[in-house]
């Protein structure tokens, strides 16, 4: 035994240069992004990554140098993150989202959407009927919403403060409108997130939202303004309410996936529903943005009831066709 030659040492000596090279490439890529790497380097990166992975496997089998294994684990992990990290051209992703992913995801949760619609409509009808018969009911819908877990900070004071001036004249309408926008986008996100709590809270939110709508309309109706108020509401409300209902549908789909996971494990089912719901939600926020635009501009500019109804009908038709019309291309890959 003249010279103690460890096989693991030879193994390391042969490959170390490649590991170092991969490490340097990763360092540079992390600092300056992909643009810092030349095309040949970019081509080498996945190869070096696979080499590092195979080195790790071999090292685990033949080497007892813990420091070496630790290093290779960390290096492979970093390279893995880089090779498999979230990376796509922003425009390609946005294009794919609007062309395929979003409508696909919305279509996929049509059952839940229908359920959310029915709940909202039912609550609206009930609230409408109650307030029409007994105006005091209007007040009682506000605490009921708080109990359902809606944001009390934004509501208790501000809701009452903004609701009553509505009856006095046209002045208060914009205040209520901007209030409704933030309120609805908040409801949308909560409705989605609440779905996790086994749908119960999402259903509650949908009902509360519908009840608010019904109560509002009843208030106007009592003053003989039902037709005008529906036009005033629906010019943006078609988009806004549809967005909130979709969010509720996404929430319900998560909740039902947790309760009835079917073939998958519960964790898996929650993940699939969560990701699909997230696609829907990203679009819902876009819808709420559009609704805000309609609310801010179209409603100020369009003062004729018939035109308002026309816009409302048109948006309803556009959304319906966009989401539910049959498509040639394959659906979202979720």
């Amino acid at each position, binding site marked *: 035994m003249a010279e103690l030659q460890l096989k693991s040492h030879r193994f390391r000596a042969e490959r170390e240069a490649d590991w170092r090279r991969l490490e340097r490439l990763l360092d540079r890529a992390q600092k300056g992004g992909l643009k810092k790497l030349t095309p040949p380097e970019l081509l080498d990166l996945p190869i070096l990554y696979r080499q590092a992975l195979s080195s790790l496997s071999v090292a685990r089998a033949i080497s007892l140098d813990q420091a070496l294994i630790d290093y290779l684990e960390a290096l492979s992990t970093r390279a893995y993150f880089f090779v498999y990290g979230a990376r796509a051209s922003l425009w390609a992703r946005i294009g794919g989202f609007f062309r395929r992913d979003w409508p696909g995801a919305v279509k996929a949760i049509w059952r839940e959407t229908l359920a959310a619609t029915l709940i909202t409509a039912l609550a609206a009808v009930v609230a409408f009927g109650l307030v029409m018969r007994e105006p005091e009911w209007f007040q009682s819908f506000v605490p009921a919403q708080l109990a359902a877990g809606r944001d009390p900070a934004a509501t208790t004071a501000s809701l009452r403060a903004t609701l009553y001036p509505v009856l006095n004249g046209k002045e208060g309408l914009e205040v209520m409108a901007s209030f409704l926008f933030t309120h609805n986008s908040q409801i949308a996100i909560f409705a989605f997130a609440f779905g996790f709590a086994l749908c119960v809270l999402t259903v509650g939110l949908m009902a509360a939202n519908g009840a608010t709508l019904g109560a509002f309309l009843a208030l106007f109706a009592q003053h003989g303004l039902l037709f005008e108020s529906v036009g005033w509401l629906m010019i943006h409300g078609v988009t806004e309410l549809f967005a909130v209902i979709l969010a509720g549908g996404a929430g319900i789909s998560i909740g039902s996936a947790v309760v009835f996971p079917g073939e998958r494990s519960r964790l898996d089912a929650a993940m699939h529903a969560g990701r699909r719901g997230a696609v829907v939600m990203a679009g819902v*926020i876009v819808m709420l943005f559009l609704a805000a635009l309609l609310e801010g501009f179209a409603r100020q500019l369009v003062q004729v009831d018939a035109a308002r109804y026309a816009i409302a009908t048109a948006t309803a038709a556009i959304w319906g066709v966009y989401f539910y019309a049959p498509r040639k291309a394959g659906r979202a890959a979720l």
Partner: protein
Amino acid sequence: MKRPRKLKAARAPREAGDGRRAFVTPEGVDLRLQVGAYVDRLGALAIDLMIVGGVLVALTLLILATFFAAWRSHDELLARALMVVWLLGSFVLRLGYFIGFELHGSGATPGKRIMGLRVIARDGRRLTADAIFARNAMRELEVFLPATFLFARGSGVDGALTTLGGIWTGVFVLFPLFNRDRLRLGDIAAGTLVVKAPKVKLLRDIAESAPVTLNGAAFSPAQLDAYGVKELQVLEQVLRGGDRRTMAAVAKRIRGKIGWEGPADVPDATFLNAYYAGLRHRLETGLLFGRRRADKHDVLAQEKT
């Protein structure tokens, strides 16, 4: 109830307590990732919230200043426009900050990067945009909603509700502590995992510089059979640590155990180095023949030699 094929695969190879998790890449290699510690994640969240909060306060102050100017000059349209800007701005900031940074190649917000954490997809595939959106939308429920509960005291909300908010926060904030992968609700919905992504330097191989013989004396096979892999790795740590007193103690133990009769004037570090190299050579040769001797009590692997 469930079909735990995937779960089982994820759980089986994990040793208890070291916080590592089996994570198989598409190439089929297990990276054994370190799950991000709860404390680290809280720290990361705190940093991120401070950044978002700081920007939000700045934005608010800026808009308030303009708002009052508009108010005084009775420019109602501008005032309304500012309100819309504030509402949209704070909304976009709150959600966009987390999503934007996590979507960006490094998969981490500034807070996470400082704490050495990053987000990955639990199934080992590419981290997708919808997963990032899902995990951050859930944050509304976990952090921002209860926060509004807690800070709502001033506006006539009764104490019961604030208490409810507190309990709510408690449940969700502590949720990651009740599962091994430290998943928060958003991670479950999105199928993501937050892991520690450290940078490790390649240390030199300490067997490389080891002397083969100590003043002419070498270790006998029997002397090298005294220990297994576990002891070898402890010895590696001792040698890399370089603490003289520990080395002296360890060298004394080993000399006693193997009945070392060679020259006694060899320095402890040299002795240990040589023994490390000899032991590693012996154990690695065993590995090549398919015998892995886990520790000194593992005699089965030695039977054939």
